[in-house]
């Protein structure tokens, strides 16, 4: 396997080499280094209310089952892979089950992963059933209702890892009068480009007036005058980006507890990136799933508010659908420009560097590990790649 030197792919003046997005060896190293040593979001507790509830998702590129055990009421995260010959044992996106039964040869597991039954087991001289449960992801922890898993048995706890991002997750969890729930389904999109393009685009206020100009024209017609968003991005000092450490970042629209963006994308008063692949924007939890260096799936889960009526929650869904999803009036323009056109353009490798230095000269460290920038700075991107470099370190040695 090709050895790569991640530090050589990002210059001191914040040029980023195209290989970061296009190179298969970089992608494999990300899956081995980043996604196997940091905390990965896998589920929200509202999806796993009752014993036996489960869902299937991905931790990095690996299919996993997240379940609430029937017997122990604990949340389990385990590989969706039969120990016998490798088939996935759970096919549904979500449901409630006592057992997962592999359809290939009938091996059966409890919904917390233990091997319960092997068919015609006289064919084995000996079989250590206790050691043949579904393979568990080493650590599982929950913060503010968000369930994370970590393949590495050692390293910082979830709350240490979240660090300065944790208070923002608390605010997300407090959005509704009685909290939030994720049970309205999800928009799925898929594009031929690198997963980091979607993460970077999540907090990129510089692009909004350009990529989303048609949506701004719609808003102008909707509210009767040009919306203030571009002026706020460029001039409002309370709209700011913050490097939260560990690769996490946020963009605040004023006070993160009470500010707002005008409500046209959803009411969350900030955009948040939890390194490496969890984002919050508008009314949605965005889970970015890397498939290959040049292939990505994104799941957009609208967050409904506990304590609101169906009609009030439907309004959240309609606002979300207006901008996001395959027919959304905004997200599709991001796919076209920030993913498809960027991926096309990066095939021109003769000069293979991007410029990610916007606002570098005006970064302001706060002294507690955070760095503050203006709304339109590329500070969230640098925050991401600081975390990325740290996690990738050692890959080239």
């Amino acid at each position, binding site marked *: 396997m090709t050895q790569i030197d991640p530090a050589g792919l990002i210059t001191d003046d914040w040029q980023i080499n195209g290989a970061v997005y296009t190179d298969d060896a970089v992608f494999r190293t990300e899956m081995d280094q980043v996604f196997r040593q940091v905390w990965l979001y896998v589920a929200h507790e509202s999806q796993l209310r009752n014993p036996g509830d489960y869902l299937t998702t991905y931790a990095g590129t690996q299919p996993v089952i997240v379940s609430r055990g029937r017997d122990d009421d604990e949340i389990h995260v385990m590989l969706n892979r039969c120990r016998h010959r490798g088939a996935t044992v759970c096919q549904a996106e979500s449901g409630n089950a006592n057992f997962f039964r592999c359809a290939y040869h009938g091996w059966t597991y409890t919904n917390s992963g233990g091997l319960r039954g092997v068919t015609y087991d006289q064919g084995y001289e000996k079989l250590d059933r206790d050691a043949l449960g579904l393979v568990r992801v080493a650590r599982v922890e929950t913060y503010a209702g968000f369930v994370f898993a970590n393949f590495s048995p050692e390293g910082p706890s979830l709350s240490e890892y979240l660090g300065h991002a944790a208070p923002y997750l608390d605010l997300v969890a407090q959005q509704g009068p009685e909290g939030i729930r994720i*049970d*309205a*389904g*999800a*928009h*799925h*999109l*898929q594009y031929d480009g690198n997963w980091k393009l979607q993460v970077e685009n999540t907090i990129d206020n510089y692009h909004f007036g350009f*990529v989303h*100009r*048609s*949506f701004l*024209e*719609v808003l102008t*017609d*909707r509210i009767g005058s040009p919306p203030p968003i571009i002026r706020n991005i460029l001039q409002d000092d309370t709209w700011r980006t913050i490097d939260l450490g560990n690769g996490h970042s946020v963009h605040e629209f004023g006070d993160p507890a009470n500010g707002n963006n005008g409500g046209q994308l959803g009411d969350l008063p900030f955009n948040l990136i939890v390194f490496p692949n969890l984002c919050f924007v508008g009314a949605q939890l965005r889970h970015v799933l890397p498939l290959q260096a040049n292939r990505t*799936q994104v799941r957009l889960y*609208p967050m409904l508010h506990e304590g609101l009526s*169906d*009609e009030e*929650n*439907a309004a959240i*869904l*309609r606002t*979300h*659908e*207006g901008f996001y*999803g*395959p*027919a*959304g*009036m905004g997200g*599709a*323009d991001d*796919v*076209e*420009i920030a993913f*498809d056109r960027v991926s096309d353009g990066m095939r021109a490798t003769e000069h293979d560097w991007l410029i990610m230095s916007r606002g570098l000269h005006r970064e302001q460290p706060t002294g507690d590990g955070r760095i503050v920038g203006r709304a339109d700075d590329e500070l969230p991107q640098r925050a991401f790649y600081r975390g990325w470099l740290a996690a990738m370190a050692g890959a080239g040695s």
Partner: protein
Amino acid sequence: MSAAAVELSFEVADFLYREAALLDTEQYDAWLSLCAEDIAYSIPQGTPDPLRRVGIANDDHRRLTERVIRLNSGFAYSQEPRSKVVHVVGNVRVLAQDGDVVTVASTQVIAEVRRGRQNLYTGLVEHDLRRVGAGFEIARKELRLASSELPLGNLTFLL
């Protein structure tokens, strides 16, 4: 089939063909003029449940008007260049008649060409057509795409 039923069947099919022709020739304003002020236009994702489940589209007349404003703005990059679209409308059946509203089912194959690729969408479509003057207006249109739960590409043209 009675002569009246044959005539109605012919009439609604002709309406659906003309609607498809407006969409296929990008006559969006003319298409919008077919839509009733109280239209409910939807492309559900999976089982339709607009109160509790996210959909691909759950549009009222205002949202449809906004889509046309966007497409006409010159800055709708996901439609720059525009999709070439062909609707094939088939299996047109009158499901019900209630006062001045005729409920019509059809199957549609929607071929879309863009970015060097042809995408094929198929759907079960229902229209509520309300009589106005000598013709109809669309009071409800629901497209149940067979692929609605797959990761979909770009559905920012008008379906």
